[in-house]
């Protein structure tokens, strides 16, 4: 005598619950994760800040009289920007793939796919915004400092601070996009992974 193989309807007496996505918990998890890995967080913030600082420096660079010299500056700064962008992407990718096992574990404890994806993306976005914000500040101060050192008060006339809001917005957006793009693919893969597979990933 065997129980039939077909799937049985759920008995009414036994109510199964369903876990919901809790946005506050997602946010708390992301902040906590940044706090717990503080050295890595600071390093990533620094990399993003560098990229953002280069960008804003580039955008506010005064229009030089000598077009050749200006081109040289632009090329060098552009390359620096590319290198720091690659650094950010790599850091984000590594920081998620290293966490597969932890992700598998928290899924066993009841984390939804959306929770995993959400907390990692919020974490990446926070890193991106804070890093880019600091970089924006540093890049602007650098541009001002160098300008004043070279031209004195005249620097303010030369530096292209017109449309600064737009330029600052671009720098912030770049930081945000870099971190979230770097995190998106590994985070999505990790969130879809069956818990056991995720836990085996890092062993």
């Amino acid at each position: 005598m065997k129980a039939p193989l077909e799937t049985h309807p759920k008995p009414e007496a036994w109510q199964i619950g369903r876990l919901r996505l809790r946005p506050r918990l997602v946010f708390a998890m992301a902040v906590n994760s940044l706090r717990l890995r503080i050295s890595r967080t600071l390093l990533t913030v620094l990399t993003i800040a560098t990229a953002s600082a280069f960008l804003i420096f580039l955008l506010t660079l005064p229009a030089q009289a000598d077009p050749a010299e200006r081109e040289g500056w632009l090329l060098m700064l552009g390359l620096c920007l590319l290198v720091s962008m690659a650094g950010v992407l790599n850091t984000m990718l590594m920081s998620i793939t290293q966490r597969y096992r932890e992700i598998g574990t928290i899924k066993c404890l009841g984390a939804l796919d959306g929770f995993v994806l959400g907390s990692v993306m919020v974490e990446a976005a926070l890193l991106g915004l804070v890093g880019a914000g600091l970089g924006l500040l540093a890049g602007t101060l650098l541009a001002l400092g160098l300008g004043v050192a070279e031209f004195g008060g005249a620097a303010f006339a030369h530096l292209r601070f017109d449309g600064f809001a737009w330029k600052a917005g671009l720098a912030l957006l770049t930081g945000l996009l870099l971190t979230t793009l770097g995190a998106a693919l590994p985070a999505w893969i990790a969130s879809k992974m069956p818990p056991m597979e995720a836990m085996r990933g890092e062993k």
Partner: protein
Amino acid sequence: MDRFENAADGGDARREMSPSDPAASAAVFLEGDARADTTVMTREVVMEYRMGMAVIRALDGIDLTIPTGEYLSIMGPSGSGKTTLFNVIGGLAKPTAGSVFIDEIDVAQLDAGELAWLRCRKIGYIFQSYNIVKVMTALENVTLPMLFAGVPPDEARDRGADILRRVGLADRLLHTPRELSGGQQQRVAIARAFANRPAIILADEPTANLDLRTGEEIIHLMKEMNREQGVTVICSTHDHKMLDISDRIVWMKDGRIDKLARREDVAIEVSHMAEK
């Protein structure tokens, strides 16, 4: 191969247990009548893995009925399918064919949110390699499943501290895994598994990475929790010390149930062997 029908064993299960033992009430069910007192039931469970061109059958028709409150040990050589069975029962992997019922619910029917609820509220997992979240303290590890379940943070912290005290880690609440020994980490894992007062504890070789004495302590801790809370414990193991405290023992071989026995019967077998 001689396949044991689990029900044959369940049918005449009259244990010598005190009436207060939650398993005692579950001991007298018959097959087909296995309802309220059955926590886990698997029917014809088959699990196949694809490895390159080859298909490996890790589970080959597992029928198992586990009554509420039972302490069941799964033994067998590595590669016999213990861990796969553990994953399938725990809703961590989907079987290729067959069904797994937990409290009469067919696990295959559950959507993602319900499955997460099952993992969070009904099942507690204990792993061979502890799987404590490395960057979190013992207390944070224990509170996490409660937060997932929607317990308010303050209450979760209090309850987490209580459970950690219960497993003997009162003075280690704020230590990270790096500052804890293997046995202490496994205690954290046990506390975490019991955090949401689950119906089932699934332990996959919980003592394999521990020395003999610590392993014994962990086994006894699990047995105590099993007795106190009436939790069903399913524990895969290589460890013969586990046999002493198990209600029943399943031996697996090549993805099938090779043998299934109650502890008393095993004890008789062993004494027979000793006589010879």
